[in-house]
């Protein structure tokens, strides 16, 4: 049976589409029939396997100034061609271009269910934003490495279209997407740590298997000015939940949080709560939930007018084994509600 030729739509910025340089970075999205610019290299790499039926071009500034808008405009353009797959870029070190490629690929995958692949250098800002959602082929810094980049992008996108198993970043050339898996190696952990230590003492080279994280800093929010008038909310990642865990917050690797009404309670009652966090012994907290979420003393402070008001709900999730993405998602959702409610400050209690 003859394999159907894959229909490919390609996304380019104004520069690679030969429309112009920075001065044309504001051009609106438009379609060019067939391949153009690097699209020809893509067509070459595809050979008989596929056809670049259309190229969508958008100016880097037009896109970056309103990403959502640009994506909304481009999606119908892609849809019209009913492609089997989408290829964006490669963007190399072009930051705005990389972000555009990532955003388009993510949207095409999520909204149109069409596999999409892009390519860029590991330091392109698009990587941080999209590597979890999109296959990003790792490229060199400039278009000097175009052919290699195109070849890998095409290979990967064909694999996905044909339902072939993706082996992994090292083999297929894409930037790791942050999914942690275990693999069997040829040596036990004890053998490996011993050898690593020996190399270190003998001043031979060694390479750590584990890296240390670099955490970003957040500009501190302005302090509360009038605490006697402030509304303060309690948040915890110790996994305190109403009995029965009605929202099904996970005991490890939480993807959601709960908000639970305090109503007029002067303290949290033992019989009403449970702990879903699996990373610590919760006996003492279950005996007295105020040991994790200090409602009792907050009520006293409220009564004595040392704070304006305790927010009538507390927020709870599990803080063990959470992925960065989920932690951020949860944090942002809580933050947005708190901001909407005009919260002046938060006390976060962790185990």
């Amino acid at each position, binding site marked *: 049976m003859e394999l159907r030729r894959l229909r490919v739509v390609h996304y380019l910025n104004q520069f690679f589409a030969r429309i112009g340089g920075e001065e044309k970075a504001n051009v609106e999205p438009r379609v060019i029939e067939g391949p153009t610019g690097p699209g020809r290299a893509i067509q070459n790499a595809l050979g008989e396997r596929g056809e670049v039926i259309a190229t969508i071009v958008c100016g880097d500034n037009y896109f970056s100034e309103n990403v959502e808008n640009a994506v909304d405009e481009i999606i119908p353009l892609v849809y019209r061609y009913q492609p089997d797959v989408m290829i964006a870029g490669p963007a190399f070190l072009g930051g705005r271009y990389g972000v555009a490629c990532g955003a388009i690929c993510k949207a095409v995958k999520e909204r149109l269910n069409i596999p999409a692949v892009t390519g860029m250098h590991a330091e392109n800002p698009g990587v941080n934003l999209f590597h979890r959602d999109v296959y990003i082929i790792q490229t060199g810094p400039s278009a000097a490495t175009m052919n290699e980049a195109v070849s890998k992008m095409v290979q990967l996108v064909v694999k996905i279209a044909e339902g072939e198993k993706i082996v992994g970043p090292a083999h297929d050339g894409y930037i790791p997407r942050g999914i942690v898996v275990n693999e069997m190696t040829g040596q036990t952990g004890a053998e490996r740590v011993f050898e690593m230590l020996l190399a270190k003492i003998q001043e031979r080279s060694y390479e750590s298997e584990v890296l240390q994280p670099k955490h970003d*800093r957040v500009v501190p*929010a*302005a302090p509360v000015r009038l605490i006697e008038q402030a509304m303060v909310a309690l948040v915890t990642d110790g996994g305190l939940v109403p009995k029965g865990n009605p929202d099904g917050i996970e005991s490890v690797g939480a993807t959601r949080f709960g908000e639970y009404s305090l109503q007029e309670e002067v303290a949290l009652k033992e019989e009403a709560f449970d702990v879903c966090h699996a990373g610590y012994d919760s006996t003492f907290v279950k*005996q007295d939930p105020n040991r994790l979420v200090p409602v009792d003393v907050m009520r006293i402070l409220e009564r004595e007018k040392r704070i304006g008001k305790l927010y009538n709900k507390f927020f709870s999730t599990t803080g063990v084994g959470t992925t960065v993405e989920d932690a951020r998602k949860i944090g942002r959702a809580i*933050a947005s509600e708190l901001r909407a409610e005009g919260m*002046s*400050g938060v006390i976060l209690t*962790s185990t």
Partner: protein
Amino acid sequence: MLAKEIERAGIPVAHVCPLTPIAIVVGSNRVIAGVKIIHPVGNPELPPAVEKEFRMRIVEKALVALQSKVEGPTLF
């Protein structure tokens, strides 16, 4: 993580955490020492009334933190 996201929205967060170096490394800006992992704002070895007082001290420190200007991760 949670502290930083809430802080990003412009709301100051007093992070009570038993292993404060962790909170500092991750980047919470206002960090207050909790008691122990198994009871962050409690102490079951104290009689209940005394324990509540003890809890009050920690929360009061958290309030001080909320009212303080900081430049970066700070232990209170």
